């Protein structure tokens, strides 16, 4: 099998984005089928990635002069990106048709953003990392401000942009320090360069680590680099919020894991300490602030910060995986991302459906939802319980793997902070359930909510996956463990 075949998933995404954009530019006025064209592209890309996943064991190597890594880890994220792109497109069809005339631009930007996630996950060189990082950021800024007549959307975009550009600049500075220390931008060569580094120059690693974490922390929405997120989440069109909350965070973890494990594995003690601190802050602050939120998008934003904190525990507890090893940290990260993807996108699908029909994002307006739409309320309970980590849902398996990894490395303190936070998180998730189930509605409001088919499909699909990952976790864990192959020196 030719090695360049492994670039097909990205190429397909790129091709469909060009197609969508081009057809929109020259094509007819009728634009209803544009999203379906984009969806076809993402589906093909997904199918190809899954097919390639079976072959990757044999071919873990880097191509294009060490710019691009072809390994199972990157294929995991290509599958991840394609799934997200497909779901976000499905979530957007009804919602955006009503709110924006710029269909072609919107879907090509979504494709571009997912293409850059995919690109970020294969980057094996700091230059490549930075380019795809910026590509993702810029497309996200535009998407956030896409409803340009809505002042909240524009404000969100500006805020996001300002934070983002500073974070990128700091990250670039960190990269330049690494380059200065090792005379290379290739991740593998950096690792080699650092192992033989002059002890007098060793101190360069520490500022470099901190500066890199600013950029990665910005993408993974980690405290204290999180300030942009609640406003951006609230102002952005809700499908874009869903993208930011899952896709963008996933991309952040992809690059974080690759850079740390490929370029800096020998410095685990240092970055683990740093990341453990960020993780504790994220979990605690995210959960505490989420409690007082009245807007569900903001609540999910803060809860996302907390989840980023849990996921970071997995990275902190990283160990080289060997077959038969139980509870390793990075498997925990990857399984948690899958679980989080299903539960959070499902929750956002419900939020989008609700906003689309009733025009509100206030948690108190969810009162009596069980009577107006048993489908929405019933599945939302599954999503929220998954986010809490109740067994039977995927969230439990994610938490089990993450906590297991922390305990295996004897990070008891981190594990205890995490469980305290899980209980605090229970409080605000239950608050939504309380409104949906316990607050009766006044009679005249009891009209049923009819969801668009695309949204119902996403809701049911994510709900099924959330339950499947909880009840039959084995194939998912196997998939994740097969994804641990990283190119290393």
């Amino acid at each position: 099998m030719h090695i360049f075949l492994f670039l097909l998933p990205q190429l397909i995404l790129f091709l469909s984005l060009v197609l969508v954009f081009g057809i929109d530019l020259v094509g007819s006025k009728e634009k209803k089928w544009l999203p379906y064209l984009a969806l076809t592209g993402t589906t093909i890309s997904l199918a190809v990635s899954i097919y390639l996943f079976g072959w990757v064991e044999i071919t873990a190597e880097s191509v294009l002069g060490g710019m691009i890594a072809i390994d199972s880890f990157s294929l995991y994220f290509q599958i991840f990106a394609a799934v997200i792109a497909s779901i976000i497109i499905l979530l957007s069809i009804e919602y955006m048709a009503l709110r924006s005339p710029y269909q072609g631009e919107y879907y090509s930007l979504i494709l571009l953003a997912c293409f850059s996630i995919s690109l970020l996950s294969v980057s094996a060189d700091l230059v490549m990392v930075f380019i795809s990082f910026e590509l993702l950021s810029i497309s996200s800024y535009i998407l956030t401000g896409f409803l340009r007549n809505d002042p909240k959307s524009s404000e969100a975009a500006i805020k996001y942009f300002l934070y983002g550009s500073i974070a990128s600049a700091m990250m670039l500075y960190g990269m330049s320090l690494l380059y200065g220390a090792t005379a290379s931008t290739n991740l593998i060569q950096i690792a080699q360069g650092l192992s033989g580094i002059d002890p007098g120059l060793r101190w360069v690693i520490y500022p470099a680590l901190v500066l890199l974490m600013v950029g990665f922390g910005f993408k993974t929405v980690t405290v204290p680099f999180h300030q942009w997120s609640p406003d951006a989440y609230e102002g952005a069109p809700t499908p874009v919020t869903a993208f930011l909350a899952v896709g963008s965070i996933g991309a952040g973890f992809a690059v974080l894991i690759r850079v740390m494990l490929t370029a800096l594995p020998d410095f685990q003690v240092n970055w683990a300490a740093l990341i453990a601190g960020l993780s504790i802050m994220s979990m605690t602050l995210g959960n505490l602030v989420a409690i007082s939120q009245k807007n569900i998008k903001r609540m999910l934003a803060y809860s996302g910060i907390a989840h980023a904190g849990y996921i970071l525990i997995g990275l902190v507890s990283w160990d080289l995986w060997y077959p038969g090893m139980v509870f390793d940290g990075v498997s925990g990260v990857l399984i948690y991302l899958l679980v989080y993807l299903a539960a959070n996108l499902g929750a956002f699908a419900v939020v989008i459906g609700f906003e689309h029909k009733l025009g509100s994002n206030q948690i108190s307006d969810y009162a009596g939802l069980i009577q107006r739409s048993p489908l929405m309320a019933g599945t939302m309970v599954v999503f929220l319980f998954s986010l809490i980590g109740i067994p039977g849902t995927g969230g439990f398996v994610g938490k089990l793997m993450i906590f297991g990894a922390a305990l295996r490395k004897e990070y008891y303190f981190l594990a205890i902070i995490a469980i305290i936070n899980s209980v605090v998180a229970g409080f605000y998730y239950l608050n939504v359930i309380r409104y949906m189930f316990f607050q009766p509605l006044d009679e005249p409001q009891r009209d049923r909510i009819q969801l668009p088919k695309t949204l119902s499909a996403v809701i049911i699909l994510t709900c099924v996956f959330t339950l499947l990952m909880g009840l039959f976790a084995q194939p998912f864990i196997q998939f994740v463990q097969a994804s641990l192959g990283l190119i290393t020196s």
Partner: protein
Amino acid sequence: MNFPILTAITFIPLLISTIVLLIPKSKENWIRSVSTVLSLIPLALSIYIYIAVRADPGKMHFTEEYSWIPAIDVYYRMGVDGLSAVMLVLTTLLSTLCYYYSIYTIKNRVKEYYFLFLLLQVGMSGVFVSLDFIFFYVFWEIGLVPMYLLIGIWGGERRIYASIKFFLYTLAGSMAMLLAIIGVYLATGTFNILEAAAAQPFAGNFALSAAAFWAFFVAFAIKVPIFPFHTWLPDAHTEAPTAGSVILAGVLLKLGAYGLIRIVLPIFPKTFAFYSYNVPVIPILAVISIVYGALVCMAQWDLKRLIAYSSVSHMGYVTLGISAAAASLAISGREGTATSAIISINGASLQLFTHGVITGGLFFLVGMIYDRAHTRQIRDFGGLGSKVPYYYGIMMVTGFASLGLPGLAGFWSEFFVFRGAFAIIPIFAIIGVLGIVFTAAYILWKIVQHIFLGEFDQEKWDQVTHQAKLTDLATFEKITMWPLVILMVLIGFYPSLIVRLLNGVSTALVNNILP
């Protein structure tokens, strides 16, 4: 391969709940009768298990083992011994009675109600048959969710507060337990509860052993509940719908005590002994639960809250019995210690069953009077004895069983606990006996005297109940109560009906932990 009877008993309620989900919402009577009638299947199966296990109750029977998540060593492991069998009978019996009683008492959102209740039964039965930690944990938590929704939707005025409190307390406990489970796994390399007990994790490391012990202990103590983790209980019990309170008191509290006997005692015997004898924190908490719970009952004027606090007190006997058995390890050289330890575990586990039957019955009775009067204030009643003699009679039997009158079920379990504990930790047994005195006082004074004795005052009744009709028990209420009353009398006269099964388990357990 044999018929997987434990899988059947656990998951038939899930099947019924799916059937309920498929019945249209408007056919409420269908939903009610299908749930009630089909729930007789698990009841029958559990009675079959009870009979089958009688011959050799100390061993695990009907074991099933399938690989579930091999990547993290999680298995689908089930098995029953005498203790599990007895608890299964209690669970399925009380569930069926609750479905039956709810036919007449739950009028709104019937479909959701039965769906959740059946899901709850899955969780409870699952805990009693699981032999794998993760599997156990899954069922433990699955029971939590429907109970939360049951309290929140069908509960009383402060239901929202009570339901959140219930959920968060239990979640906090179970999260601690999850860490301890992983810790035990990392120390022993297995999630199998029996193998982990045989491996004795952390035997050489007291700090870790104590941490894991307390994590499990707190999780179970919250559920039992043991003072000072009991504060969720009065709220949850008081606000829950009648059938919910019955299941809460009758089965859910037992999950915690069952965990102490099945998991904590066999896996951490030395640590448990240390905290029961050398630093007797646990017997102290048990005694506080007994005496404090009973004293609060004396001061309580809300009948349902009174019964709720009586559970705190009565479950204190269970804790006392278990900790006495643990403490026996510290004085294992003394003659007769093993026998006393066995007796005290017998008492504790018998108390699980009898308390389930008695307090379940008491909560049904409270619900029945509340449905008539729409008040639970003891001061609002008086002289009901002449008006509702049938109700009075049943309440007397149940109340006397609760205070431990010889000849009724409650006597034996308390007697065994104190007989066992007196030989091992005498001082706590002596203080604990005070609880029996107070129990007699509040049952006789609060319930019997204030509610039933004296002259019936029609004017006052009309005023407090807005002229509600006071009728004696209806047929469905009698049918609900009779199985429980029969059990109380039957066990009172023939305790070996249950003790024979429990004794096998206790003997095996004590033989394993004593050197």
